[in-house]
C-alpha cells in the first residue's frame, strides 16, 4: 500500500478549518509529561543516518534473541514456524482489519470463518467470534455479556485471575451499576468455600482463569457447577497452548471462554499486540460481541462467506449494541489460523507436552538451589511461583541475573504482597538446555 502524506498546504487548510494555528497547538490538550520528547535528531540527516541513529538508541534494549527469558505472566513466547511469516506477510493478507465492503474480500472472510472453527474446536465451544483486541478486553466483554444475558448485577472474580485483567474489567465497568466481588485464593487456587459463600441468585457470572496467575491449575469443574446452581454464567480465561493437555472450557460446561492467543503464531514483542479469543454457547449467539463471519450460498447456490448477525452491532443497534467493538485483530488472527492448521491437534498436544516437561524439569532443578522453594504445592503447567528464602529480594536477584543475560521470573509482590518475596517463573519450549544450565549456575552464585 502506498504511503501518501498530507501536503503542507492540506495541513494548513485543515488547521484553519478547526481554528488552530499549528499542529503543535493541536496537541496541547495532551499533558506535556506524556508527550513525545525530542529525539534530538539533527535536521538534514539522510535516511540511512536516521536509521542508524535509531538503531543506536535502541541498542540498550535486550531482546529475546539475546537473553534467556523466564518471563510469562500472560505473555508467552512460543516458537513461530517459518510458514507463519511466509504466508501472513503476503500482500493479499497484510491488513490489520476486517474489511469494509466485507463480502468483496471472500478470502479474508473464509480465513476468519476457518479461524472461528479452529477456536471452537480448541475451546470446545459452540460459537466463536472473529477475535477481540486481547485477552483482557475479551474477559471484560465476557463480563458485560454475562450482565446483559442474566439481567443480574453482581460479578465474582477470582483473585487468581491476572491482576491486569482485573484492572481492565474494573475500568470497563466503571460506568456500570454492577458490583465486582473478589474471591480470595488459598494456597495458590481460588477458595471454593469462599466462592460458594458468595454465590447467590443475584450473581451474573463467576470469572476464573486456567492455569491461574500463579501457574496453578484451578478446580474449574466444581466452580462451574457451583455457579450454575445459582443460575450464573461461568466464564473461563484460558491459555491456548495449555489446551493440548488440559481440559478445554467446554469440558467443564463454561458458558463463555476467552483467551489471550498471541502465543499462537505471534511474538511477545514488548507486550505488543494481543489476540483475544471469545467463544460461547449457541444459546448466547446473539449476545456475542464483535464481528462474526458466516458461511452461506449466493444466488447461484455457490458457497460464499459473509459478515453475519450484524444486527448485534453498533452501526445498527446503536447504544443497544452488544459491544462497541466493531473490528477484530485481523492479522494476528490470520497468524493464529496458520499456526493452528500447521500444528493440528497432535502438534498442539506435543507442544503442550514439551512445555509441561521442560517447565517441570527446570523447576525441579531450581528447587535444588539453596534458598529457592516452590510457593504452592499444586499441579502446574509451564509456569510456577517460586519463593526465595535466602534473604535476597526478587528484584535484586533479577538484577543479578540480567547481568548474565537472563530475564528472571516476574516478581509478584506488587500485586500480591501477602505472598512475600515470590516470583512467577515460566518455561516454554523456547528455553534451551544451555540457558537452563546458565540460570542454575547464576542462581548458585548469588
Amino acid at each position, binding site marked *: 500500500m502506498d504511503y501518501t502524506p498530507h501536503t503542507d498546504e492540506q495541513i494548513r487548510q485543515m488547521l484553519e478549518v478547526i481554528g488552530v494555528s499549528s499542529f503543535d497547538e493541536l496537541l496541547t490538550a495532551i499533558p506535556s509529561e506524556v508527550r513525545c520528547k525530542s529525539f534530538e535528531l539533527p535536521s538534514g540527516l539522510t535516511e540511512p543516518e536516521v536509521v542508524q541513529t535509531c538503531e543506536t538508541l535502541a541498542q540498550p534494549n535486550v531482546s529475546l534473541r539475546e537473553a534467556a527469558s523466564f518471563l510469562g505472566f500472560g505473555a508467552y513466547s512460543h516458537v513461530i514456524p517459518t510458514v507463519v511469516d511466509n504466508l501472513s506477510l503476503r500482500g493479499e493478507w497484510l491488513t490489520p482489519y476486517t474489511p469494509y465492503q466485507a463480502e468483496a474480500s471472500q478470502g479474508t472472510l473464509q480465513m476468519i470463518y476457518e479461524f472461528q472453527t479452529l477456536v471452537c474446536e480448541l475451546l470446545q465451544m459452540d460459537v466463536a467470534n472473529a477475535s477481540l483486541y486481547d485477552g483482557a478486553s475479551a474477559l471484560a466483554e465476557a463480563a458485560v455479556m454475562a450482565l446483559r444475558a442474566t439481567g443480574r448485577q453482581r460479578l465474582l472474580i477470582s483473585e487468581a485471575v491476572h491482576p491486569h485483567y482485573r484492572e481492565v474489567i474494573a475500568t470497563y465497568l466503571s460506568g456500570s451499576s454492577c458490583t465486582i466481588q473478589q474471591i480470595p485464593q488459598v494456597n495458590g487456587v481460588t477458595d471454593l468455600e469462599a466462592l460458594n459463600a458468595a454465590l447467590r441468585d443475584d450473581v451474573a457470572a463467576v470469572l476464573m482463569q486456567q492455569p491461574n496467575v500463579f501457574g496453578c491449575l484451578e478446580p474449574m469443574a466444581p466452580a462451574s457447577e457451583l455457579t450454575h446452581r445459582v443460575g450464573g454464567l461461568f466464564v473461563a480465561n484460558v491459555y491456548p497452548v495449555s489446551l493440548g493437555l488440559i481440559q478445554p472450557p467446554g469440558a467443564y460446561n463454561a458458558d463463555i471462554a476467552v483467551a489471550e492467543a498471541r502465543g499462537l503464531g505471534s511474538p511477545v514483542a514488548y507486550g505488543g499486540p494481543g489476540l483475544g479469543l471469545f467463544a460461547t454457547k449457541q444459546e448466547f449467539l446473539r449476545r456475542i460481541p464483535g464481528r462474526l463471519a458466516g458461511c452461506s450460498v449466493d444466488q447461484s447456490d455457490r458457497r460464499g462467506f459473509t459478515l453475519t448477525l450484524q444486527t448485534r452491532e453498533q452501526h445498527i443497534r446503536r447504544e*443497544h449494541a452488544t459491544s462497541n467493538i466493531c473490528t477484530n485483530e485481523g492479522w494476528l488472527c490470520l497468524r493464529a489460523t496458520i499456526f493452528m492448521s500447521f500444528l493440528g491437534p497432535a502438534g498442539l498436544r506435543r507442544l503442550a507436552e514439551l512445555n509441561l516437561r521442560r517447565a517441570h524439569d527446570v523447576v525441579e532443578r531450581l528447587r535444588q538451589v539453596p534458598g529457592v522453594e516452590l510457593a504452592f504445592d499444586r499441579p502446574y503447567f509451564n509456569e510456577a511461583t517460586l519463593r526465595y528464602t535466602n534473604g535476597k529480594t526478587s528484584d535484586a536477584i533479577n538484577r543479578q541475573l540480567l547481568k548474565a543475560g537472563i530475564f528472571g521470573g516476574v516478581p509478584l509482590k506488587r500485586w500480591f504482597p501477602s505472598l512475600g518475596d515470590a516470583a512467577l517463573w515460566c518455561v516454554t519450549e523456547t528455553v534451551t538446555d544451555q540457558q537452563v544450565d546458565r540460570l542454575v549456575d547464576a542462581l548458585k552464585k548469588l
Partner: protein
Amino acid sequence: MTIPEHLRYTKTHEWARQDEGEIVVGITAHAQEELRDVVYVELPAAGKTVKQGDPIAVVESVKAAFDIYAPISGTVARNNAALQKTPQLVNQDCYGNGWFFAIRPSQPEELNALLTADGYAALLKTTAH
C-alpha cells in the same frame, strides 16, 4: 394499514390488548412492515417485573433490530414461545399469533394513558415520510 379499534397503542408501535386479568402485547402492522422479515425475537421470562417504558424484548429483522417496550407496569405472565421457532409469525399475524408477551399489570390505570386506534392512526400520519 390495519389498526384494530379494540386495541390500545404506544408511540413506539406496540399494541396492548386486555385479556381477562392480563395485557397481551405485540407490535403493530406498521412496525412489522417497516422491519420487514423478522428473523429473531428475544422475549422476557415469565415472572420478570417490568415498568412501563422499560425495554424488555428485542425484535430483529434482516434489516435492523429494535427494542420492544413494556406498555404497562407489572409482571410478565407468559411469553409467546412459538416465536422462537417461527419468528415469521410477527409478519404473518402481528395482532394474533405473532403476539410477544402478556403482562399482569400492577397499575391497570396506566392503560388509559395509551393511544386509541384513532390516536395511533394520527401519530402515523404525522410521522409519515
